[in-house]
């Protein structure tokens, strides 16, 4: 049975010249788990929003969309609201009310259901999603993962037949993201609800899905099973999308596998083991971005607390010029606080922060942030004060030569006339970074810079940051993104319970961890020593002439 059918559907935004969704034919069966992927700006979001009539964007459309055999436009308002659920990327903005239980009831109240029915639905939904423990909480006190779970639960309380999710895990840390996907899988498996999910992190979702839709420039480039997708990729080794595949698939595709491409870590391990067949590999060496290394920022024995309990205890790190350091750790481990202390935005209760050998508290405030430290907040929107990107850059510096240099360096020239809110998350991140770089900092502190941006934007960001390192700047990033930290940083520190538990060269750091490490490391553990990225594994195998012809 079909639940969604698109007949030659096209959609164009007002004032646009090309279709955002281009002659799409699509048929989605009941109870399927469909993954929609593609590069940023390929029309994923536009397509998904067109499937939910209440939030469909304005513009010109042609062709038809059917829900359960009825034309979507003819669907009754109540039915459309309750039977098609929609969850978006930002966990915060979707929440309407102030308490968890009220949020769960919100949609049901809208439908005008009587209290006993709402009572029952709220109770069983809370039970299914395991939110009994924080049922009476204030939504503001929840973590991002909990908020997104609440959004999903609030939609599910309306008992939809189809749920559409637009990059729901992009703002979550990896553990919360996995939990979210697990629940999504349960919804699909146990309740038979149809799921349409867009994602750019394929590592965890590919194995969950029945069908994958790959979009390019608003059109469907591929629609089929995940297995077929990967086989399809094997035939086009230089496809841009290759980079977004799970590590196991990337490794095996690069080494010539064409027929039985592994997807999960477990399959990847088995595949690699049979390929390596007992070969002894050499230990990989850490490459250092820059040799010009000198300590510039140093915290020693820093303690900090907001209220009674300490968030930082004995937090000590040394930041070297010309190097990129990643501080990784779980939720509420004190990462963000640590960064604020290093930036001089929070005063430690005990201990010192030294900038170029001099205590931070001895500096005048404007000296710290002029040509010294710059910090990128998690949300780039905090930095946009003007109507165009260019005006925002001018706000940071009126030196035109400098500005031109940064615009070229970051590739911002196409964005200058746009409003900062109209560009993508990755582009916003770049503009905010550009504003900071115009202040000519020597030390860049970045809070979760890879949050919510796709693989390509991540690569661009890494290039920019590495370039700063070669210029002799120090870069510190606080992140959940283990893969990014492994691939690009020189040094890694793990913070747990407010304390730096270990600090090492990136390679040794991840090779030494068992749980907190990259997929490539999990795949190659005990087979190839100290390989932490897919590239490491591929290079090591190629060096030993291990690949399929």
């Amino acid at each position, binding site marked *: 049975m079909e639940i969604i059918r698109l007949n030659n559907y096209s959609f164009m935004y007002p004032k646009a010249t090309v279709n955002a969704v281009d002659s799409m034919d699509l048929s989605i069966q009941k109870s399927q788990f469909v993954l929609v992927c593609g590069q940023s700006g390929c029309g994923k979001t536009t397509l998904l929003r067109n499937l939910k009539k*209440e939030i469909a964007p304005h513009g010109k459309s042609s062709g038809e969309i059917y829900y359960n055999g009825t034309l979507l436009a003819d669907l009754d308002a109540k039915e459309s609201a309750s039977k098609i659920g929609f969850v978006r990327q930002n966990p915060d903005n979707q929440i*309407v009310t102030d308490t968890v239980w009220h949020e769960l*009831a*919100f*949609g049901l109240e809208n439908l005008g259901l009587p209290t006993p029915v709402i009572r029952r639905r709220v109770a069983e939904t809370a039970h299914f999603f395991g939110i009994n423990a924080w049922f009476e909480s204030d939504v503001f006190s929840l973590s991002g993962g909990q908020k997104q779970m609440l959004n999903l639960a609030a939609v599910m309380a309306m008992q939809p037949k189809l749920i559409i999710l637009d990059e729901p895990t992009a703002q979550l840390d990896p553990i919360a993201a996995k939990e979210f996907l697990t629940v999504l899988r349960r919804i699909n498996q146990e309740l038979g609800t149809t799921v349409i999910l867009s994602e750019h992190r394929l590592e965890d979702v590919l194995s969950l899905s029945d069908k994958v839709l790959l979009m390019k420039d608003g059109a469907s480039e591929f629609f089929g099973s995940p297995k077929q997708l990967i086989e399809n990729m094997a035939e086009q080794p230089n496809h841009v999308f290759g980079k977004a595949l799970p590590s196991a698939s990337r490794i095996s595709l690069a080494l010539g596998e064409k027929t039985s491409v592994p997807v999960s870590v477990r399959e990847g391990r088995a595949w690699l083991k049979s390929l390596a067949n007992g070969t002894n590999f050499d230990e990989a060496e850490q490459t250092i971005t820059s040799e010009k290394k000198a300590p510039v920022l140093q915290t020693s024995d820093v303690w900090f607390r907001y209220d009674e309990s300490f968030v930082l205890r004995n937090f000590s790190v040394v930041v070297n010029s010309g190097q990129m350091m990643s501080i990784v750790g779980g939720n509420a481990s004190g990462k963000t606080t640590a960064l*604020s202390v290093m930036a001089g935005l929070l005063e430690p209760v005990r201990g010192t922060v030294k900038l170029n050998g001099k205590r931070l508290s001895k500096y005048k405030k404007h000296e710290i942030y002029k040509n010294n430290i710059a910090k990128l907040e998690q949300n780039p929107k905090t930095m946009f004060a003007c109507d165009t990107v260019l005006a925002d850059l001018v706000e940071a510096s009126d030196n035109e030569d400098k500005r031109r240099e940064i615009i070229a360096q970051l590739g911002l020239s196409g964005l200058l006339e746009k409003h900062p809110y109209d560009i993508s998350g990755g582009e916003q991140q770049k503009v905010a970074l550009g504003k900071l770089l115009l202040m000519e900092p020597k030390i860049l502190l970045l809070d979760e810079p890879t949050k919510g941006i796709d693989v390509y934007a991540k690569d661009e960001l890494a290039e920019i940051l590495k370039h700063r390192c070669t210029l002799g700047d120090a870069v510190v990033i606080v992140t959940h993104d283990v893969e990014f930290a492994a691939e690009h940083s020189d040094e890694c520190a793990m913070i747990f319970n407010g304390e730096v538990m270990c600090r090492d060269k990136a390679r040794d750091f991840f090779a030494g961890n068992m749980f907190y490490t990259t997929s490539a490391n999990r795949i190659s553990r005990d087979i190839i020593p100290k390989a932490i990225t897919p590239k490491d594994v591929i290079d090591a195998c190629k060096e030993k002439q291990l690949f399929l012809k």
Partner: protein
Amino acid sequence: MKHIFHLYYPAVVFLYIMAALIFSMITLNPVCIIISFLAASGYSIYLNGVKSYLKTLRFVAVMFVIISIINPLFNHNGVTILFYMFDNPITLEACLFGMASGGMLACIFIWFTCYNKLMTNEKFLHLFGKAMPTIALMLSMILRLVPTTRYKIKCITNAGKAMGIQAETRRKRIAHGVRASSILLSWTMEDSIETAESMNARGYGVAKRTSFTAFKWSPHDIITGVIITALVGAVIYMMIVPFNTYVYYPTAGGELIAPIGIVGYVLYAILLCFPLLLELRETIKWR
């Protein structure tokens, strides 16, 4: 921490806390003020903890001292002149009256700390939201907006600081304030579009809204409600038939402790300590 009284039906909780507040406001009888102060303090410590209570107490003490001093300076009623200050008589009665009103305000203040803990927003909305579901929803949305906005302001200030935007002069400070509020405005508006869409997506406006509440009457609530109502009635009766008369002007005095008056004090104390007594009974039961 969850307390027993929290779990009672909101109307019962509201009845009790309003009785405590209103009685504390209308009586200037020193014994009543002392009873109210002790009961309010005890309950405030129980609900908010000693630390928070001491903080309140520090503020309340200052207020008490100020009012006690100010009243005799401006109010020269009363016949017992203690001394003259700037040619104005300072009377014993005005001093006593000042202390009584200071004490009364202190009580009201401490009761309010209890009110805040007891009458959470959802309880308030439950009591008054049924009649006006739209306003109830709006209130709930505003209550969500307040902490979110506070958080956003903090982020914007920090981002500004780390960009070297510092307010050294007053003029600059105003300029930065304008800048920050413009950022806040665009950010909030952008976010609220998403919230509005989320409301639409979940069928806001497709039917007449109902108002769901998590509270339900139980027989227990009714019994407790009846007891509190009876106590309130008794205390009102004792006040209308003034058994314990105490006046401040022209001379302070009156019958503070009449035999029948003691019954009134005891009833008043039982009313004010009612939740504490409930908790006590519960503690004994579960030990």
